[in-house]
């Protein structure tokens, strides 16, 4: 201990700087780990689409066909059954992301939340039962959308699992895009019109900025300025079919996306029994353009690789520079080493001293970023363990190099010869 004090006093200024450098170096290690972990999570989302086929189910009920179909009194029940069987199959993933504007009551007017804002249209407002309602951009999504896209919340919680079923009087849970922060808060009750039917909703969460989901029309649909509702499937064939709500909902439930390894022919075979059982055949299967999907996953992969290479090179270069400052420290401490040699220390023990000092510096320095980590990150254990594993490896590597370096340095300086005069 005394020796260390002595060495410290010899070059206090340099020692403090080397300590600061060590703290920064450790922070960088930690930041690299967190960043790599982040990019790993981010690549898993688009990677799920890789090597999969994406199909869109699209009904053929337009013009005269629709009228003809709904002249059948069982038509609603047929559509319901078809949609239900479609999403209950376990041969593929049924992904439902419906872009459909809704209307919010007493909306604090800001035109950028309008669904056609980018196309130059302002906010549309109309009266409904004595209240003004504004049309805003909205997505209705099912649970698979959360599985396939890595969506993050800044506040609140996601939809509970029972939210995906229609209940007449229940409050609809609502997630809001990041741009709504400050306008509404978690827990706020909102009145809304969905396909012109009135519902009550409650805000359960606010998304992080720049969250996006894959949809057939836009592979990177940004959710910032959107209101997110769960797709609410009917448990039973709906009885009250007045208005457009039930019909439009049934359409949106069956016009979903299928994500699967199946080829178009295989998918046709899988869907055949569903047609037969539900007695519904008026639909197409449209294959999605694969380029946007592949491009997304390639883009994120390349991004991760790029960050990884750059992190590694910067890390190595900084380590090199750090070692160099350490060698300067050793050189400055030579008079002390000489005194130590006179007092009976061996060359080996002096070399040990410098590598031990490095371990001590980095050991203490590593605590600062770790403390910061405990405060900032919610579940720090995983990061903490990885961080210390990396720090230990780096320290061992550096200590080995310092030992080699001091050995070479001492041989060149030939301390013993200098002492002899």
């Amino acid at each position, binding site marked *: 201990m005394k020796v260390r004090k002595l060495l410290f006093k010899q070059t206090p200024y340099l020692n403090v700087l080397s300590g600061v450098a060590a703290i920064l170096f450790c922070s960088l290690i930690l930041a*690299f780990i967190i960043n790599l972990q*982040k990019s790993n999570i981010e690549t898993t989302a688009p990677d799920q689409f890789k090597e999969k086929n994406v199909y869109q189910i699209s009904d053929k009920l337009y013009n005269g066909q629709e009228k003809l179909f709904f002249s059948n009194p069982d038509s609603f029940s047929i559509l319901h059954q078809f949609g239900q069987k479609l999403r209950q199959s376990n041969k593929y993933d049924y992904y439902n992301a419906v872009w459909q504007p809704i209307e919010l009551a007493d909306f604090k007017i800001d035109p950028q939340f309008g669904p056609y804002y980018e196309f130059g249209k302002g906010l549309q407002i109309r009266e409904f039962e004595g209240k003004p309602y504004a049309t805003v951009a909205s997505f209705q999504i099912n649970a698979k959308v959360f599985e396939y896209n890595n969506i993050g919340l800044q506040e609140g919680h996601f939809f509970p699992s029972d939210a995906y079923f229609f209940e007449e009087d229940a409050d609809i849970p609502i997630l809001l895009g990041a741009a709504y922060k400050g306008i509404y808060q978690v827990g706020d009750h909102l009145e809304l019109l969905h396909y012109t039917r009135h519902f009550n909703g409650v805000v359960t969460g606010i998304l992080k900025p720049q969250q996006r989901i894959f949809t057939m029309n836009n592979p990177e649909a940004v959710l910032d300025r959107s209101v997110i509702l769960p797709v609410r499937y009917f448990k039973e064939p709906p009885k009250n079919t007045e208005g457009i709500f039930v019909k439009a909902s049934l359409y949106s439930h069956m016009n979903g996306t299928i994500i699967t390894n199946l080829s178009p022919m295989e998918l046709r075979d899988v869907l055949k029994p569903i047609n037969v059982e539900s007695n519904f055949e008026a639909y197409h299967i449209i294959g999605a353009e694969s380029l946007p999907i592949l491009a997304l996953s390639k883009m994120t992969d390349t991004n991760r690789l790029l960050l990884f290479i750059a992190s590694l090179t*910067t890390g190595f270069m900084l380590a090199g520079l750090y070692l160099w*400052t350490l060698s300067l420290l050793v050189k400055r401490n030579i008079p002390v080493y000489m005194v130590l040699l006179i007092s009976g220390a061996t060359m080996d023990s002096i070399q040990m001293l410098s590598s031990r000092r490095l371990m001590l510096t980095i050991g203490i320095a590593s605590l600062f970023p770790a403390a910061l980590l405990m405060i900032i990150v919610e579940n720090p254990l995983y990061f903490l363990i990885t961080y210390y594993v990396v720090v230990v490896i780096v320290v061992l590597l550096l200590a080995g190099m310092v030992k080699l370096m001091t050995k070479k340095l001492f041989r060149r300086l030939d301390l013993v010869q200098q002492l002899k005069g």
Partner: protein
Amino acid sequence: MDKTRFIFILQFICLLAGSAFWFISYLDQINMINNGYLNKDSLSFRTKGWEGELNKHTTNYILMQYDTISPNFKYVHVKGHVKLPPIDYISGMSTTGRTKYAIIGKMVRTTANIPKSYEIIGYFDTPHSYRLQFQTWLISKEASIDLTNGTSFDFSTPNGNARKVLDSLIDSEKVELIPRDQFGTYVLESNRMFPALLAASLFFLFIMKVMMIYMWIRKDNAVIKVLYLSGNTYWRIAGFLAQQKLLPYILGSGGLIILLFTFKFMNPLWDNVWLNKLMYFVIAGWLVLLIIIGFTIIKESVQKGGKRF
């Protein structure tokens, strides 16, 4: 020997800083390509009483004009030195000597709507940018803008503050700015965090640099003292240090900057922000060196005192 080694290490630090700055810009360019060649500073606007007349102004910009009905069909007005996205030219074609030409993505289905005056000279060589792959760019270097081709615009400039440059071209009251969503790799959090990380490394490098400079000057404390005691004036001591330290250091970093400038001409990025920032880094180094020299002279002469001869 020692002097060259110190200068070498200091230049190495500058080179590292330069690579970090360059990498931040490079990443931004990749993000820009993945985002449909719009960067985070690009502006989107709609016309509001603007008649398509640009004020005459020498500046560099790229102005994409489109109709919201077909946002992938763009009239692109280019002025000055602007880097275009990577292009896979059709053999025998090039941009030289042309004022109007078309570049299209490989996924564009029809070319029938391209006016005859625009000849297709190549395809976007950007396999990861599905946005560009679906776009048609009709590039024109002529200043006139015909608003019948669309009233929505995206504006990007490599000359710093996009808003300022746009205001110098168009009266700001005549356009309505639209907040734009970011796409592509811009959205990735890891990607957004990385420049911050590199900035931390740069801070680290700067501390290292100051430390090195300090140690380098301190090595000659004894010489300064001897010079002082033997009757030299401050100016002579300063001159001696300038000759021994400042000059070789400035020459060294000058060489480095020339090297990086050649690199820039061979491999231009969208903008030169990285080079400007590196210049600040280098100049800050010079200032630190000057301050430390001054500080050392005072500390080692007047403050230490002693009998002068």
